[in-house]
């Protein structure tokens, strides 16, 4: 297919239950099938963390799955069955660590794995960052694509490394500030929540204009209750910010689901292909949106806390996943026959 021929892309906005990996995967399967039935797309994207909303909570310690486990099987088998490219992310054990891996699966068995480069804040408790470029080639569609997970979308350096791709695909799991905190904190929380909502709303089209390619961005939505880092007895009730969007290379929103829309899926016809980016990439700034002091504090504080916790637990063999055998898959998986699946091995 020529990079200039339009393709139909669908994006799924799920409302998932914290820690309920298997029910969530069934829900994701239903949403993917429904999106396929309704839109007949060539590409379907679901968010990162499709096994469980990725928030600070002790149940997240049991959410990681083998890289070739049920989430991977779901994506690869549905891709083959529905004859379309399907992408989704989950916490995956790869070798000796857990990563936030986003898998793009093609109908012929090809697979493309991208590990999020920096876990966001509390996420550092549960996994570590990867070092791949997040660029790959979809042979089925003849397209170079870039893959983004979570707050990778927010960083200029991500847009810089994805420049030149025909299409940007990926997902977001963005829980907001604690909406249950009252008293003197109420105003502060409301303000931060509004800023984050705005940032999330603008982000997909900003990335489209910075990269110079259409974007499909799938996001979690709906209420979720987590714990407060370093004060786990204090509940952190909030909501996933939604804003599943499909935009063209100029940043025009072609399809969108907001927080208020709730769970669902949308689709749009986009014309893939790299064009001259409309917006420049800042060499001085790290973040694309405006980042408040609170966000900076959370980013640096929780990153440090999470990384220390992850390393300390690993050193003592206290991560649950350390008790089961690992194995890994390469980032680029070749096509395989119907009766052969990619299964993790130690090379």
């Amino acid at each position, binding site marked *: 297919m020529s990079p200039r021929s339009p393709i139909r892309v669908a994006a799924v906005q799920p409302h998932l239950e914290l820690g309920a*990996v298997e029910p969530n995967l069934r829900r994701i*399967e239903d949403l993917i099938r429904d999106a396929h039935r309704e839109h007949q797309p060539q590409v379907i994207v679901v968010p990162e963390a499709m096994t469980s909303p990725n928030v600070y909570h002790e149940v997240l310690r049991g959410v990681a*799955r083998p890289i070739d486990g049920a989430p991977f099987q779901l994506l690869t088998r549905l891709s083959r069955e529905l004859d379309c490219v399907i992408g989704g992310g989950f916490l995956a054990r790869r070798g000796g660590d857990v990563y936030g891996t986003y898998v793009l699966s093609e109908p012929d068995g090809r697979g493309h794995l991208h590990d999020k480069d920096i876990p966001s804040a509390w996420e550092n408790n549960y996994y570590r960052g990867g070092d791949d470029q997040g660029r790959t080639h979809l042979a089925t569609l003849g397209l170079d694509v870039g893959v983004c997970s979570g707050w990778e979308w927010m960083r200029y350096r991500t847009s810089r490394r994805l420049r030149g791709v025909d299409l940007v695909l990926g997902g977001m799991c963005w829980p907001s500030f604690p909406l249950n905190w009252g008293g003197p904190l109420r105003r502060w929380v409301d303000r931060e929540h509004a800023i984050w909502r705005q940032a999330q709303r603008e982000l997909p089209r900003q990335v489209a204009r910075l990269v110079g390619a259409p974007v499909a961005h799938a996001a979690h939505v709906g209420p979720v209750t987590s714990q407060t880092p370093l004060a786990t007895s204090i509940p952190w009730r909030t909501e996933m910010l939604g804003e599943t969007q499909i935009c063209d290379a100029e940043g025009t929103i072609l399809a969108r689901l907001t927080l208020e829309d709730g769970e669902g899926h949308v689709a749009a016809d986009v014309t893939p292909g790299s064009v001259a980016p409309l917006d420049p990439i800042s060499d001085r700034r790290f973040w694309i949106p405006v980042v408040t002091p609170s966000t900076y504090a959370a980013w640096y504080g929780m990153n440090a806390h999470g990384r220390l916790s992850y390393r300390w637990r690993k050193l003592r063999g206290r991560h649950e996943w350390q008790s*089961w*055998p690992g194995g890994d898959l390469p980032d680029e998986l070749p096509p395989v026959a119907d*009766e052969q699946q990619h299964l993790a*091995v130690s090379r």
Partner: protein
Amino acid sequence: MEQHDVVIVGARLAGTAAAAELARQGRDVVVLDRARFPSDTLSTHVMFGGGIDELRRMGAYDRIAALDPSYMRELEIHFDGGVTVQERWGACGEADWVWCIPRLEQDAILVEAARDRGADVREGWEVLDVLWRGGRVAGVRCRDADGAVHELGAKLVIGADGRRSTISARVGAWTPYRGSRNGRGLVFRYLDDPQAGTRRNETLAQWRDGDSFCMVFPSAPRPRTVALVMGPASDVTRARKDPEGTWAEFLRRHPGFAERIAGATNLGKIRSTADVSAYFRASSGPGWALAGDAGHFKDPVIGNGQRDALWMGRSLAEAAAPLLDDPGALDVALRRWEQERDDECLSAYHFANNETRIQPQSPILIDIARRAGRGRADPLSPDLGDLFQRVRTQQDVLPVRRLAGGLAGAVRRRPRAALRTIREAIPELRTDLAIRAEVRARRFRSTRPIGGSEHPGWSWPPPPARRPIAAAEGDGAAASERPAPKRRRPRATTVPSETTTEQPKVPA
């Protein structure tokens, strides 16, 4: 859709062992098998002590003992050059003997034992496909003995359906991630032991002549015996063209073997197979596991397949039974079980790869055997017996110090060939050290081959094609319109053809 805790595909060793244990733990388990029992399959027949213990656990022991089997209490290995090692089998579990039961009778008893424990064994049922939900195997689509198609839901599907496992194909694990080409073929026949009632009828005997291994396994009911030759795989081709002529040639080439069975009566037809490449398949995934030959197969030259299949079935069931209601924990348990299986089998896999090589016996091994044969220092610690029984690994039985001693002895015994002996020993020692390192490393599904142990050139056929449901339904009647299937009892009149020289199933 019928819902069950576990569906097991294959009702022989691993399948019935798993079914018996799951049912014992109160789980709702269905076992499906294309065959109707009694049903034969190619096999070395040997059941070492660990396997006999498994029979006891699953409740099949008394019925098999009632078949009047020979109890092989001793092991006798004759090496080239007149060296003979004779050992009494050490206790392995509760048994200090070895059995060799014809599969026709044995497997029917295993099916009955699983039924007695509460498993629903359905004979004549063929699996067509596996069902998926949320990235997990959620059941099977199958065809009953009358041709009607059913869907059975399950929290766990176990493929215990042999080397050509349909389940392995449907879950994407058809092609092994690691394997080794076999050097030896297998040619055997039943006969009535002319030495029945003597001590030789209580001995598992092996002759290592040149490039061939010949064996005699007193079987059941007495005086039935299995005589078996594992020579170069090319023997199988000749045995298929001219069975009796090839057998007569075996007897000429191996006089010790010929002397042992001289005067045998009631000779059965000659059977053979050369399709015995060893392998490891990925054997666990979300909602599925492979047990027995479906997941791992080692060269039959060491006769450990039956013991391992029973162990795999039972240990898999023990790992899975408490966790069937927690899918995430179940998948982790299945993965751990696969690692445990590899720990259990890896050393024996390499041992079998070594034994299947077509070459004269190593002078080092013969020297070690010579020392052992000269007078057993510790009769309570039978080296070769322990090795075959898996009481100790090859690395335990032959530590580096002992190998070095064997090398020194071989050099002393043949000083003119010292350089050649050392030159031949170096790669052997290198391989041995690599195996020790691999066993210690416990790398999950390791794809690093061990040079000198794993023989390249093994090939793998394409997977069985998925059958369309319409074709599978036969006369086309809808499954839902058919009455509930009845359990079938074994048909006592089913007798396998002994004229076959090649069957799809292979030795356990």
